[in-house]
């Protein structure tokens, strides 16, 4: 049972529509016990009886309803007859009413016509009265400055007057009116020309005049001239406050007064002279805007407007207004000029930036110079100084790049324009290249200022290294940094293949100049000591040598201190420097002073470009110093002791200097040349035993 109840379509469901009695019975007989069948039978019987009685009640109820319905129908049939009679009476009455109404309207027709005629007469009379009263009306209106009303009235009346102007009565009115209108025109023009009328009043006046059929071109002229006067007044005011207010305030003022007025003037112009060609307007707008731009540039260049934020905000406001203006004027030149203003601002900013960087770098250099000078003999940490200089410079450049990139912010009216992006990219590159070229120029200048030997040689080394470092890494770092910044703020924008080469060449020549100058400086310092000592001494009366002369120690110290300084910045490269500069002096096998040997040895160039390498720098200084020794020895005459003293000196120098540089042959060649020259210049050329020289050197 329970299973059969589950399915609604089950044929075993006694209440379902698909009930199959036989199946049900069969099923019941199959599944239930006798007792259950008996119970089921009793249940079915009671249910059948209940259904039977219910059916009987339903039949009775329906029967009663049917009887009452028949009664109602019968009653309705008798009522309809009375209604029919009433309707007939009504239609009769309606017919009577129609007849009466036709009669009445016939009677009233004549008097209605009369009334109409009277009305039109009255209107005509009104008009005539208006015309006759017109002169006084006009006068009154004009006196009360209601020019709009006056002109309105006049234009109304004008048609009539023109139509009937040949009749004498109207003629007088017409002449009177035209006199008045002439006066009105005059006053309007006067009003145009007075400077203190506002732009809207101006527009109104011109509109009126135009309604009074003034010719367009002269009106345009007057209109523009007046507008120009007014704008000039604004310009003057703006010019006057340039000195007193900051950029934002100025732009605000400019936007609110001058540019707002200009916009009104232009839109009025368009309204009034709709169809006329645009010949005058762009020219006029150009003239005004040019002046405004010049003023703006002036404001921008004021020192207190340097801040990027204020500049950008002011520029943004200004540009927005101009953009709106240029749409009104629909002239490209104003827009182009507005672009130019922005670009010029960017360029101006860039110029400021690299100038600031340069002055700051100079200040830093001054500080370094002072610290180097005050340190005295104590060795300074050149590497640290170099690092701080370099980092400072790079940071400054990067900061200024960021500053310039601020011009590309999305929220700015010009921020996303491609031309602006290009200008910013250009300006950024200008900052980088100008800074670096300025740096190289400065280094070159400092290096060539040899006469005033105030520049410590350490500084020259630092500057040379700085230039080299920037040339090797800095340029590309900055370049890629710039590309990254541009990519972030304006994707797709690139710095077109910039001339990094020129910058690098500049830097490397600057570095070379600084190195050369350092080498010559150190070399000359030592050379000067040797020269003075050789020339001042009386070598003929020299006593027997007891040790190397003090000057030799000083020379060694000088060269050594330069060597130490160089070693901080220019570590020795592993491969020996290919010193291509050997000429002039002849390095040769020891103790041989014969011209034949010279032919087979190489020359040594004394003042020659120095390599960026500790050993090469020391070689350079050694060459300069020792060649000077050779030349000075040749100018003197030596006694035997003098020669021996020089022998000791040379030996000492050889011992102490051989650790410097990397070209021992060069050193030996020069020192032997010095000794050989002394031998030639000696009246009694007898050298000491090398072993004794050794002992004397050690003792000294």
């Amino acid at each position, binding site marked *: 049972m329970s299973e059969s109840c589950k399915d609604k379509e089950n044929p075993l469901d006694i209440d379902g529509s698909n009930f199959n009695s036989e199946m049900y019975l069969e099923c019941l007989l199959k599944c239930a016990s006798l007792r259950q069948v008996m119970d089921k039978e009793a249940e079915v019987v009671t249910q059948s009886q209940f259904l039977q009685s219910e059916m009987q009640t339903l039949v009775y109820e329906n029967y009663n309803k049917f009887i009452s319905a028949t009664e109602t129908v019968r009653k309705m049939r008798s009522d309809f007859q009375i209604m029919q009679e009433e309707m007939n009476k009504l239609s009769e009455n309606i017919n009577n009413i129609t007849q009466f109404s036709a009669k009445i309207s016939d009677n009233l027709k004549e008097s209605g016509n009369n009334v109409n005629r009277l009305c039109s007469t009255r209107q005509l009379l009104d008009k005539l009265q208006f015309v006759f009263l017109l002169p006084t009306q006009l006068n009154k209106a004009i006196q009360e400055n209601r020019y709009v009303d006056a002109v309105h009235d006049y234009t109304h009346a004008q048609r009539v007057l023109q139509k009937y102007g040949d009749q004498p009565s109207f003629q007088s009115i017409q002449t009177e009116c035209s006199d008045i209108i002439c006066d009105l025109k005059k006053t309007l023009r006067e009003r145009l020309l007075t400077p203190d009328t506002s732009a809207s009043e101006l527009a109104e006046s011109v509109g009126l005049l135009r309604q009074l059929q003034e010719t367009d071109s002269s009106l345009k002229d007057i209109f523009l001239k007046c507008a120009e006067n007014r704008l000039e007044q604004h310009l003057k005011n703006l010019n006057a406050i340039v000195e007193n207010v900051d950029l934002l305030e100025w732009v605000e003022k400019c936007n609110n007064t001058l540019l707002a007025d200009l916009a009104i003037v232009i839109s009025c112009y368009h309204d009034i002279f709709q169809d006329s060609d645009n010949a005058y307007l762009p020219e006029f707008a150009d003239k005004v805007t040019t002046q405004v731009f010049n003023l703006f540039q002036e404001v921008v260049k004021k020192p207190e407007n340097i801040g990027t934020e204020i500049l950008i905000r002011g520029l943004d406001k200004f540009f927005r207004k101009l953009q709106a203006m240029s749409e009104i004027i629909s002239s490209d030149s104003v827009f182009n000029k507005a672009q130019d203003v922005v670009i010029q601002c960017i360029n101006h900013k860039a110029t400021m930036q690299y100038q600031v960087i340069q002055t700051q770098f100079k200040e830093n250099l001054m500080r370094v110079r002072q610290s180097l000078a005050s340190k005295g003999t104590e060795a300074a940490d050149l590497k640290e100084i170099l690092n701080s200089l370099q980092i400072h410079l790079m940071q400054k450049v990067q900061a200024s790049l960021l500053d310039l990139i601020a011009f590309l912010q999305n929220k700015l009216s010009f921020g996303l324009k491609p031309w602006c992006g290009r200008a910013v990219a250009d300006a950024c590159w200008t900052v980088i290249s100008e800074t670096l070229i300025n740096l190289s120029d400065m280094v070159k200048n400092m290096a060539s200022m040899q006469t005033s030997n105030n520049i410590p040689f350490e500084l020259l080394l630092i500057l040379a290294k700085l230039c080299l470092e920037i040339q090797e890494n800095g340029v590309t770092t900055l370049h890629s940094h710039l590309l990254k910044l541009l990519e972030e703020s304006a994707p797709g924008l690139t710095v077109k293949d910039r001339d990094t080469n020129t910058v690098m060449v500049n830097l490397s020549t600057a570095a070379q100049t600084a190195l050369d100058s350092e080498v010559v400086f150190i070399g000359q310092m030592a050379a000067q000591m040797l020269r003075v000592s050789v020339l001042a001494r009386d070598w*003929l009366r020299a006593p027997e040598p007891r040790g190397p002369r003090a000057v030799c120690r000083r020379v060694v110290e000088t060269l050594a201190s330069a060597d130490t300084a160089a070693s901080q910045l220019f570590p020795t490269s592993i491969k020996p420097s290919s010193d291509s500069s050997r000429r002039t002096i002849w390095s040769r096998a020891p103790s041989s002073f014969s*011209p034949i040997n*010279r032919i087979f040895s190489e*020359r040594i160039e004394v*003042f020659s470009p120095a390599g960026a390498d500790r050993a090469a720098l020391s070689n350079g200084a050694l060459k300069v110093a020792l*060649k000077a020794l050779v*030349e000075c020895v040749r100018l003197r*005459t030596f006694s035997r002791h003098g020669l021996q003293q020089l022998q000791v000196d040379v030996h000492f120098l050889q011992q102490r200097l051989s650790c410097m540089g990397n070209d021992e042959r060069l050193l030996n060649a020069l020192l032997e040349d010095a000794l050989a020259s002394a031998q*030639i210049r000696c009246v009694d050329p007898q050298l000491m035993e090398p072993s004794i020289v050794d002992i004397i050197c050690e003792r000294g």
Partner: protein
Amino acid sequence: MEEGNSIIYGLEHQTRALSPQYGESDAIRFLIGTQSLKPNTNQVHVVELEEDTGALHTKVFKHDIGEIWHLRCSPHDAATLITTHNFYDLDTCQCTMGVSIFRLPSIEVIPKDLDDLSAMQNRNAEDMELLKTITPEKPEEEIRCAEWHPTDANRIGIVLDNYVSIRDSSTGEQVASVAPEGRTRLKFTGGKWSPQGHSQFTVLQDTHIKCFDTRTDCSKPAWNIESAHRQLARDIDFNPNRQFHLASAGDDAALNIWDYRHGKEPIFSRTDHSHWVWTVRYNTYHEQLLLTGSSDARALLTAAASICDVDDDGKRLSQVLEDGVLQSYEQHEDSVYCAEWSAAEPWTFASLSYDARLVLSRVPRHFKYKILL
């Protein structure tokens, strides 16, 4: 002497003194003085280049009064010369410098007959006639050089350590002296008569060039060029055609040309040598050609055309030569202390190095044609 080929003449001793024979206008002749401390070994060599054959003829004269530091032929007489010499006295162990005027027995060098030739081949040193020897007031004073007055044959200027003594060449008397006031420690390195005014003597003092008028008390220079070189100034030469131009050379390896009326900045400057420049000479006929000798063992022929081709208003008249080195002469193997143009022929010059090598060279033909045509 064909294109590019130089003629080399070697001597036995070190040399520092060279002079063209100013009084001679036909033969290309140079005089060389040797520098040797050994007694009685010093000589004066007269070298003549035979232009047609390119042959070199020499004559040797004894100079027994010491080693020669400086030598100048007289512009007034081809046979007369003046030497600045140094003599070492073995007994006193002291050096004494002096200035002597000699006359050559004959100026002819090219042998006329076989006797002459054999004498020449023997190279027997002849004697010169010693006209006058002038010694400084104090024996230990060093003499830098002695210069003939350009017009007055009786007047010579002797540059010493710290003053210039103007002497009468016949009597040896001092007629004037140039000693700047203050007695500055800075010593003189050389000097020359200025070609203008005939009484102005220009000296090199350390890095400065100063000109004194010998008619005044010489306490203040008539004009000067302060710091003409960054290091010592070694030599000057006056432009023979432009009276305010002079060339200077110095230890900063630079060749500078100055207009001494505006002595702040050189009007021309080159640093082509790689060591001290010891000598500079204007070509007597073509002022745009300059000859320099340096201790980098080179003689350089330099063109300074840009400042010579201008007229009075500073406009370029023509551009014949590019500025800069025209030719480098590298036949020397030691420092070149002297280089001189021939007095007789505008295109020939001699350079002398310390290792006693005289090199006679010519301006390359194409430059010569460029200048002439």
